[in-house]
């Protein structure tokens, strides 16, 4: 029961089992090359999952992040391509591209924020609007074709320290910081409080609307940076990059044990969830099983995560019921 109650422990066990299984089918699964692939694919999902975690903890949802990845990557690629044609140094090009991608993501997040806090649309609806509009604009801007041709970017994204590519290192550091920030900062505390009981948060003097707005901007910015990450991987901005990834990110958060009702969850769970999903997707391809099975496996994971949560809730409720008598006695008025 104690082990079951800790979703992170369950995920670690699942992860070890998965890696052992794939390794048993093909020993090259634990090779520097494949570990590099796993870390890279994880990096593509990690920032989206982290952003989604903040949003879900606050009691919302952000369906727009996948489209934001596409739009930001494309707009960044347009600018980077023009700079490359004008023979700017590669480092400058990539830095400017990163800023543009982040800014585009932040702008999409700001539109979400306005729709949610000013027009009072439900987050599901507001971000669904941007999911659709963003995907459409990506195609409109590009006519469906990828933008740019930057092999230096690909090589940069593939080089690094051991299996850790440079972009993966940057993203992992960001994930760690954002994880600590969620759990140990005042900003994170407000995020949990709003998701747990927004009335109480407002009564405690928290500017709930402004905080929520900032969370959607954060989520958008992280999606924008993911757009830059995909540019580096592909050497071009592709309109379909990030497509459907909002659902994978939500799945990572849910598998990590976070309640979709908001107010609870651990970032370590989300990170493990994202890693489990990455290992499943890559592992199935690695051992040559039809990748279409991937979706089935992900569905099964979400089911078990939800079941675990329900079990924990009911066992917690049971425990409370059992001990409510004696503990109440401990509440005593002062003499």
């Amino acid at each position, binding site marked *: 029961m104690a082990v079951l109650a800790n979703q992170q422990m369950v995920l670690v066990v699942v992860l070890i089992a998965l890696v052992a299984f794939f390794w048993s089918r093909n020993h090259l699964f634990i090779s520097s090359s494949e570990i590099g*692939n796993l870390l890279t694919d994880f990096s593509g999902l990690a920032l989206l999952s982290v952003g989604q975690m903040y949003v879900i903890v606050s009691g919302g949802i952000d369906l727009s992040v996948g489209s934001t990845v596409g739009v930001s990557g494309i707009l960044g690629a347009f600018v980077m391509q023009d700079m490359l044609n004008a023979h700017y140094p590669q480092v400058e090009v990539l830095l400017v591209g990163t800023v543009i991608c982040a800014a585009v993501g932040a702008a999409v997040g700001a539109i979400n924020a306005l729709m949610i806090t000013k027009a009072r649309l439900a987050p599901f609806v507001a971000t669904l609007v941007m999911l659709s509009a963003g995907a459409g604009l990506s195609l409109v801007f590009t*006519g469906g074709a990828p933008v740019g041709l930057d092999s230096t970017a690909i090589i940069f994204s593939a080089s690094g320290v051991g299996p850790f590519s440079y972009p993966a290192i940057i993203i992992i550091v960001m994930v760690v910081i954002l994880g600590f920030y969620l759990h140990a900062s005042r900003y994170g505390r407000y995020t949990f409080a709003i998701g747990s009981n927004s009335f109480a948060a407002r009564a405690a003097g928290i500017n709930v609307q402004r905080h929520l707005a900032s969370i959607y901007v954060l989520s958008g910015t992280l999606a924008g940076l993911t757009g830059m990450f995909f540019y580096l991987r592909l050497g071009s901005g592709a309109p379909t990059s990030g497509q459907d990834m909002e659902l994978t990110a939500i799945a990572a958060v849910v598998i990590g044990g976070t309640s979709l009702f908001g107010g609870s969850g651990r970032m370590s769970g989300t990170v493990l969830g994202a890693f489990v999903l990455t290992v499943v997707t890559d592992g199935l391809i690695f051992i040559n099983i039809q*990748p279409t099975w991937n979706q089935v496996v992900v569905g099964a994971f979400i089911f078990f995560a939800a079941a675990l949560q329900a079990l924990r809730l009911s066992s917690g409720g049971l425990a409370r019921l059992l001990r409510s008598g004696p503990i109440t006695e401990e509440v005593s008025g002062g003499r």
Partner: protein
Amino acid sequence: MLHPRRFTTRRVLRGLAAASAVASTSFVALGTMSSNASASKPITIAFSVGDTGDPFFQTMYLGAAAEATKLHVNLNFQGNPALYSPATQLPYLDQILAEKPSALVVAPTDTKALESVVGEFVARKIPVLNVDSGDANQSNITSWITGNNIQGGAQAAIGLAKAMGYKKSGYYNVVVGVSSLTTSTDAARLKGFKTEIAKKYPKMHILDVFQSESVSATSTSDFNDVLSSHPGKPGTKGGVSGIFAIDGTNATGAAAALAGHNLVGKVKLIGYDAYATNVQQLYNAKTNPHGAFTALIAQQPYLEGQLAVKYAVEAVRHQTKGIPKLDTLPNILLTGNTPKATLAKYTYQAS
């Protein structure tokens, strides 16, 4: 000549305009690339495609326009500037119908969805021709001019075998990337590829067929995994020797994976379609050592456009004798050693 996509105000404005055009279907005129259509009673050939933003269709427009000029007829070439879908193509066809053209050439975005509107053209005795894609019901279609996808797949197998230096003593793992197995063109190309291998190349083994669902990131992740699970030398059982990237997203994905694994030029990559960005990436040991593509299968959209207008005009003039019911054009194999002039000829050009 080559058309790098640029971030220009014009482009973004065009995009936004397109977005509003999608919203208000009456706004049809925006996507029009029309030559003068105001003369008293000349022949006007209406030409409807899915996506005028795609260089493939832009090249087709150039061929059609050249033929129209040659035959002294008007060309009304229309399509949504960005979205390839029957929902966006239908309003254009309605508009064209109202303008009563002499003939219609259409590249249907769906094999069935446009059948009723095409039927209205036929009912008004306007000849209808298909180009590139075709309607499911061909009974009313005067002619269908299209690239031969099965032949293209076969050509890819031949090109790949040649590039890999195929020998009967070798062992050649190849991987195929398609957008989706339910896409008819992808399926036909894959079929041609497989049939040719079964016929001629017993030592070529198709390791995997990946479906990218049009997402390059998925594709590159898939190719990365297969390159890691088969790290051996090309030409051996433990390595990957060749990749056939059937659509654009897989071409991008495979190229990125090869660059990341430092296997450009070692693992042979054959792509489909001679988009300028693809042609730029044709590998040549001397002139383009970073090029990811060993070869490209090029369709002939320019010729398709030309022939479509030619047959359409003949149909209007009731000279139906020379019009084939189905005209399949062969695909061309381009490599880094193909003469520049030939490359230029077959590269899809933005108009």
